[in-house]
């Protein structure tokens, strides 16, 4: 049975000896903020003006990193269910039950059976709850994707512009090559190859910068939120996608600029048209 009574617990240090059976586990952040250690006694209550219960800190635990809680910074303690119910004055009440199923029974069918006779409660398969509770992250993920699209568009335009300028810088070289009889196709190929090389080098530099930025992001936010969560994750798939995209854009931009260059008359390239 799981209890998740989400009422605020008021907690202060006490000096009186506690009732021997009341133990409390506190998370590390609580221990640090209130300067508590194992064996210390605390007063508990459902409201700051009423703290009638005494408890002994029996454990300090590190909570599992939870992205849903990272910005809330709630301070949590754990009590045995009867102890918590006594503190809250809500005996034999819980927020939810966890139900383990026998092998072969599907969560959907079990939930349907329970819901047929449900009054005052509703049964949900864990997968449904997980999906509902991850809505926040789905929204953040959609936002990140939208920002990524805008960033890719900006980068693509920037890359196109730079490639165009880079190739146009080679007008005189192209003119000379055309004067000495080098074929248009060769010049075109050389310029596209150069664009591809620049794109690959730029991508490698970009990937390096991304790793550095990712490491800095993780270091900053882990410190900021006091958590072990990973905030920036650069996978090989992401690197491969970025390199391929920039290579594709670089080659396309180089080809466009080179095509314009080789179509221009050599004298015009030389500036004497």
């Amino acid at each position, binding site marked *: 049975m799981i209890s998740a009574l989400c*009422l605020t617990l008021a907690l202060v240090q006490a000096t009186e000896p506690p009732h021997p059976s009341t133990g409390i586990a506190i998370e590390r952040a609580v221990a640090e903020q209130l300067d508590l250690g194992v064996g210390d006694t605390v007063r508990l209550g459902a409201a700051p003006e009423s703290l009638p219960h005494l408890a002994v800190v029996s454990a300090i635990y590190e909570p599992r990193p939870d992205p849903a809680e990272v910005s809330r910074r709630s301070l949590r303690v754990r009590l045995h269910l009867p102890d918590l119910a006594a503190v809250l004055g809500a005996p034999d009440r819980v927020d939810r039950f966890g139900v383990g199923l026998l092998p072969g029974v599907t969560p959907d069918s079990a939930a349907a059976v329970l819901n047929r006779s449900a009054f005052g409660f509703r049964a949900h398969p864990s997968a449904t709850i997980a999906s509902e509770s991850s*809505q926040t992250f789905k929204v953040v993920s959609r936002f990140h994707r939208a920002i990524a699209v805008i960033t890719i568009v900006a980068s693509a335009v920037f890359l196109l512009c730079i490639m165009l300028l880079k190739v146009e810088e080679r007008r005189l070289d192209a003119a000379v090559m055309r004067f000495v009889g080098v074929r248009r196709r060769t010049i075109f190929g050389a310029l596209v190859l150069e664009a591809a090389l620049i794109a690959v080098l730029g991508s490698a530099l970009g990937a390096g910068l991304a790793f550095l930025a990712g490491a800095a992001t993780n270091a900053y936010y882990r410190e900021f939120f006091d958590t072990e969560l990973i905030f920036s994750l650069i996978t090989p798939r992401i690197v491969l996608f970025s390199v391929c995209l920039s290579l594709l854009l670089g080659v396309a931009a180089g080809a466009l600029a080179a095509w314009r260059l080789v179509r221009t008359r050599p004298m015009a390239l030389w500036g004497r048209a």
Partner: protein
Amino acid sequence: MTGLGWGVKSLGRHPLRTALSLAGIAVASAMLLDMVMLSGGIEKSFSDLLLARGYQIRLTPKGTLPFDTEASIGGASHAVRTIRADSGVEAAGAVLGTSIYGRAHDSLVTLFGYGIQPEAQGIYQVTAGADLAPGDTLGVLLSETAAQLLGAAPGDTVTLVGRLDPQMADAAVGRRLAVRGEVRWIYDYRGQPSVGTVLPVMQRLGRDAAEDRASLLLVKVADGAAVEDVAARLRERFPHLEVSSVADLVVQAKRRLVYFTQLSYVLGGMSLIVAVLLVGTLLTITVNERLGEIATLRAIGVSRGTIVRQVFAEGTALTVLGAGFGIVLGLATAEYLDAILTSFPGLPASFSFFVPRADTLGLAALVLLVTGSLAGLYPAWLASRAPIAATLRAEAT
């Protein structure tokens, strides 16, 4: 020809290059605009939301924010009377939020119930029908969604029940109430089925009324009284409650949404860098291409200052034109991004992340214009330092 005219004409010589640069600056400006709107939008939107009905102070259980936990305040009516006695308070009211049920045909629908004091309420606006009168224990207000779920309109009667007992398969308490009006609950998320009754009715439906509990107390400060002074007095009077002014709550909200604020700074900064790089690169290459022309101008007596002004003008023209397109693009993308972020579960429907503010937008425009123009500094220096004789000789060969 003026510097600006020369700059614009120069940009027209390479239409594809200029178009691409403008597109790049436009996208970067759009991103900058969006991020500026995001950085200030959370604060503005949340502040507007909290002040929608003019209540500047909230009292909640110690260590909590309004409706953040199920914790509640005992002896609410007495606390409200005490607050109303303060000379700096114009109005004060209690609000209880709890989960209740409504009967719709043969089934029960889950509703969010507000217990309010109609004479001092700061959480809804009547959209149809009438408001509850103080002490109206037979009336109820419905949100649009609740009205649809219950199939009720102003003038109809609905049945609300509370404290369901799974063992007895019955509700511990039920009330038949007349729908007085349809309202928009200011802090509801999209599609939230909410109903409101006077506080004692909701206390009975939701929990034990004997303790006279409320989720929060709202306080409107009288004209001429300082909000912080009243808040300080209330903190002294109610040491076991959290007394928060709108400014305090905005700080809390910003702390929770700090990720978006910081993201906006990072992406805004990157957009600015992209715009500056684009302008700088384009101008540098343009100046290099036109060194001969610049040397000729210098040879016929055009001063270095004039050349520098012309290059600056070109950079400014590029920035202004690109930013102009960027504003249109940025407003469109802000609407799209806002639609994504406001779909956060549990977020008030009237909350917005991307809010245009004249001061921040003006500052962003100024920064973009200044940095875009300054991006022409290096190319302008190159142009002014071009050796006249050597350049002309090189051009002639």
